[in-house]
C-alpha cells in the first residue's frame, strides 16, 4: 500500500492529469444532451450581473434595428386583432389563452459555436421556470434550461441537441426542426414525409404538441427542399424567422396549463411504461 502511494506520488503529474481530465470529460458528457443541460446549466446571478452590465454599455448599438422589428411586430399584431364589431358575432371562437408572455432582454448570446446558449434578464423572481419556450418578435428562439433568481439561460435553436416539433403551415403535416446547418441564418426541417413537396417560401410553424410553444409560431420559411424518392423521409433547409445574431428583446412563454396537462399525461401513461 505504501509503495502504491509512493508510486502515485512520484507520478503525481500524470495521475493528476488523468484525474482532472476524467472529471472534465465526465462533466462534459453529463451536460451534453438536452436533459443534461437542464441539470448542469450554469446560471448564476454573478455571471448574469456581469453580462447585464456589459450589455447596458453596448446594447444601444442595435436599438435602431430592434425598433424597426418591434414596429413590424406591432403592425402584424394589429392585423390579427379582430374589429370590435366581429366580437359580438356568436361565431367568434375564443383564442387559446392558456399562454402568458413574459418580456425579457437578452444580455448574452452566441451564434458561432456548435452549441449556443443565451442569457436573459428574467429569472425565478419573475416566474421563469425551466422548459419554458422562448420566442422573438419574428419567430421561435429556444427553451429555458437554467434559472437563477434574476437570470435565465436559454438553449438556443442553434444547439446541436435542440429539436422542435413543427408543422408545415399549408398542409398541417407534422415535422421536426433541428439546426443542422453551418450558419445562424438557416435551420433544417427533418422527417418530412416523402409524398410532401415543399416550395421555397412555405412557412414552418410550431405544432403546439410539446406544450412548450403555443401553435402557429413561425420557425422559418423553406429555402430549398430536395425530395429523394428512395427515402421515406426527406429534409429541407429553412431560413430561420428569428435573426439570432441581433436578438435583443424576447418573450418567455408560460404555459399556465402545463402542470395540468403534464400530470394528466403522466396518469394516463403510467400503466403503459
Amino acid at each position, binding site marked *: 500500500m505504501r509503495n502504491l502511494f509512493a508510486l502515485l506520488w512520484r507520478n503525481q503529474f500524470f495521475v493528476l*492529469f488523468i484525474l482532472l481530465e476524467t472529471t472534465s470529460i465526465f462533466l462534459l*458528457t453529463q451536460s451534453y444532451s438536452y436533459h443534461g443541460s437542464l441539470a448542469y446549466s450554469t446560471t448564476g446571478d454573478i455571471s448574469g450581473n456581469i453580462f447585464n452590465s456589459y450589455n447596458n454599455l453596448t446594447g444601444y448599438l442595435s436599438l435602431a434595428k430592434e425598433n424597426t422589428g418591434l414596429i413590424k411586430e406591432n403592425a402584424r399584431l394589429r392585423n390579427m386583432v379582430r374589429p370590435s364589431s366581429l366580437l359580438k358575432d356568436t361565431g367568434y371562437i375564443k383564442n387559446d389563452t392558456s399562454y402568458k408572455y413574459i418580456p425579457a432582454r437578452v444580455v448574452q*448570446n452566441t451564434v458561432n459555436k456548435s452549441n449556443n446558449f443565451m442569457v436573459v434578464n428574467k429569472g425565478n423572481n419573475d416566474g421563469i421556470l425551466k422548459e419554458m419556450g422562448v420566442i422573438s418578435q419574428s419567430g421561435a428562439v429556444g427553451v429555458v434550461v437554467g434559472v437563477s433568481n434574476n437570470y435565465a439561460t436559454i438553449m438556443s435553436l442553434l444547439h446541436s441537441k435542440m429539436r422542435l416539433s413543427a408543422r408545415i403551415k399549408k398542409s398541417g403535416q407534422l415535422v421536426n426542426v433541428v439546426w443542422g446547418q453551418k450558419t445562424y441564418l438557416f435551420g433544417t426541417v427533418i422527417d418530412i414525409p416523402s409524398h410532401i413537396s415543399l416550395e421555397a417560401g412555405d412557412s414552418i410553424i410550431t405544432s403546439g404538441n410539446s406544450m412548450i410553444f403555443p401553435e402557429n409560431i413561425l420557425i422559418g420559411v423553406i429555402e430549398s427542399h430536395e425530395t429523394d424518392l428512395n427515402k421515406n423521409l426527406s429534409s429541407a433547409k429553412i431560413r430561420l424567422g428569428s435573426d439570432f445574431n441581433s436578438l435583443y428583446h424576447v418573450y418567455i412563454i408560460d404555459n399556465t396549463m402545463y402542470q395540468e396537462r403534464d400530470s394528466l399525461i403522466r396518469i394516463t401513461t403510467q400503466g403503459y411504461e
Partner: protein
Amino acid sequence: MNNVIVLNIVRFLSLGLAQVLIFNNMNFGSYINPSVYILFILLLPARINGSLLLVLSFITGLYIDYFANSMGLHASVCVVVGFIRPSIINLFFRNQEFASNEGVTPFSVGWQGFIKYSLVLVLAHQVLMFYLEVMSFNNFFFTLSKSLLSSAVTLLIIVIVMLIFGKRRRF
C-alpha cells in the same frame, strides 16, 4: 514572489472577462471563435510546478465554462494544454535559462520562439476543442477548417495583445 501572484491573478481575471464578453461574441462569418484566454496558461512561469500548472489550467477552463455554459468543455481542453506545456517548453527552449518565476514571453524567449510555442499549444487547444464541442467526426473537414481558422485568429490576437501590453507593464 508576491508580484508574480498578483500579476497572474490580474491576467486570469482580465483575460477571462475579455474572453466571455468580447471574444466569445466575435463572429467572422460565424465560424471563428478565438480562445484568447489560454494566453494565461501560455504566460505562466516556465518552471512552474507541474501539479500547480494542471490545477490552474483546470480552474481556467472551468471559469470560461461557467460563463459559456459549456460545463467541462474548456476544462478538459485546458488540462490537456497544461499537460503538454512542460514538454513543449523542453522541446523548444532546452538550452534556455529561465529565472525563477520567469514566464514564457516574447522578451524571455524571443518573438520567434514565443510564436512557435504559442502556435503549437493554440493549435492543440483549438483542434481538440472544436471536435469535443461537436463530439463527432461528421463534417470532419468542416470542423478541422474551423479549428485551423480559429487558431490563426487566436494567435494573431495573442500577438497583438503582447505587442500592446507586453513590454510596458510586463504583462
